[in-house]
């Protein structure tokens, strides 16, 4: 099973890199690392490493990265008429599904890690003479775990959308709307709460502290991820995909 998942991952990576030409694929990766690893850290300076807000920011990056490729996972195979041949192979349902999800998570999370490391180097180069700056353990672990769960969220949700969509474009549109909903609903939802509720939430957050807040957030995200992975697994049926 692991070998089959890695086989699917390997092919997905090759296709991601070949999207719009291999050179273009590599150029896009360099642009991302250039912006998130060099330009922004240089602009923000030491705060890029020391602020706890970094955790939240890096939680979103893999969601956006994965959203750009995951729409292609099944809708793309359907559109290019490769899905049925894949389904007629010896691969199990789980190997196909998890191979595609793992490839997207590895892409989003891998780039995020690259951005974190290059960003840390950039800040220290910009701040040379001011002593070595390090992410705090909470920030480092929080960013790593949150970005992983973020990548998994986008991957599992994206696969669910892609399984249903007839075309990549349709999947991309649905995913764009879903990403905006996830981004804006909590913000506007909290703003819409009565003042006394907002007050109580703020008091609870201050009392809880960064670590407890982060752990609570991660636990909720992990639960949602798990739910989406199970939903995707339940949704994946060869006969449904062939008929659809």
């Amino acid at each position: 099973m692991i070998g089959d998942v890695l086989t699917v991952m390997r092919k997905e990576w090759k296709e991601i890199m070949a999207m719009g030409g291999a050179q273009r694929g590599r150029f896009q990766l360099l642009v991302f690392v250039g912006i998130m690893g060099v330009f922004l850290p240089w602009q923000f300076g030491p705060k890029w490493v020391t602020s706890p807000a970094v955790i939240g920011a890096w939680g979103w990056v893999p969601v956006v990265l994965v959203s750009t490729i995951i729409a292609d996972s099944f809708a793309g195979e359907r559109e290019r008429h490769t899905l049925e041949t894949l389904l007629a192979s010896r691969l199990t349902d789980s190997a196909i599904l998890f191979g595609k999800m793992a490839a997207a998570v590895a892409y989003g999370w891998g780039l995020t890690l690259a951005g974190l490391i290059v960003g840390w180097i950039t800040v220290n180069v910009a701040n040379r003479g001011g002593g070595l700056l390090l992410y705090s353990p909470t920030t480092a672990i929080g960013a790593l775990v949150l970005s992983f769960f973020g990548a998994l969220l986008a991957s599992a949700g994206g696969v669910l959308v892609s399984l249903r969509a007839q075309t990549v474009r349709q999947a991309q549109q649905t995913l764009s709307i879903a990403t905006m909903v996830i981004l804006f609903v909590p913000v506007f939802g909290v703003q819409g709460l009565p003042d006394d509720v907002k007050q109580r939430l703020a008091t609870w957050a201050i009392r809880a502290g960064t670590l407890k807040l982060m752990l609570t957030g991660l636990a909720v995200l992990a639960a949602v991820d798990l739910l989406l992975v199970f939903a995707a697994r339940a949704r994946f049926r060869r006969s449904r995909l062939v008929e659809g």
Partner: protein
Amino acid sequence: MTESAIRTELLTRDFGSVRAVDAVTLEVPRGEIFGFLGPNGAGKTTMIRLLLGLLDPTEGSARVLGHDTRTDSDAIREQTGALLEHTGLYERLSAIDNLDYFGRIWRIPGPDRKARVQELLTRLGLWDRRGEQVVKWSRGMKQKLAVARALLHRPSLIFLDEPTAGLDPVAAAALRDDLAGLAEHEGVTVFLTTHNLAEAEKLCDGIGVIRGGRLIAVGAPRELRERRGGRQVEVVGRGFGVDLVAVLRAQAGVQGAEVKKDRLVVVLSDGVEVAPLVGILVRGGAEVEEVRKDSASLEEVFLTLMEEK
């Protein structure tokens, strides 16, 4: 006794109110090239999907290489190869990458995989362009590559869904030759759907004809020709008047007689002598230049079957 490669029992599949495959009972022996003929929408592709276990039957059952399609479809897909309605190639990738991917899927060890890919690409004349993105290839080349992919893991049985559809006659003939050569060399059972009757006649040991989801005839090409068309005799010459043709039609063993331009086509039952009939024509005043014996072509058999109610 060796079990058949394919055995179906009243296999039926509905899509809503439409019955795509209707109570098909069929047996394909191992090592045979079996052609499944039928017009568009007859149920050929659905049949392949059912046999691969990609769709569950509504009623009936099917066993492929001894495995039940409903309960053991993973084992079927493990031992079969398929070229379905579309080539199913990853066109952004090269030929080598496409075959390497499927070689890994079938867990062919690295050195064997490389050797097998080279063997198939060389035999199909694609080795020199192995590194190019498949998107740049002609349809015929893609179709050949898809055949190579279907045979890569040396399956016991391959399904080919209209393998020469959309190819020009030269490319189709070349692919047919390749298929026949590969099937013989690899010793696989081939289940082939087509509406190209010449193709079926050249390639297939056995043929099934499907119409509206129902299997309406099955047998070797020669059997089908004899069963449906009888023996056919063409008499070239002049003077085949209406009365003379009527006399001929009245003879025992004559199934039909019809004048087409300068020739008279007579369909005979098995065992009927031709010489006495020619004698009747000559005595009736016809000038006979040539007599040709032939069976009805598969195309004529097929058209007859399609017209039957």
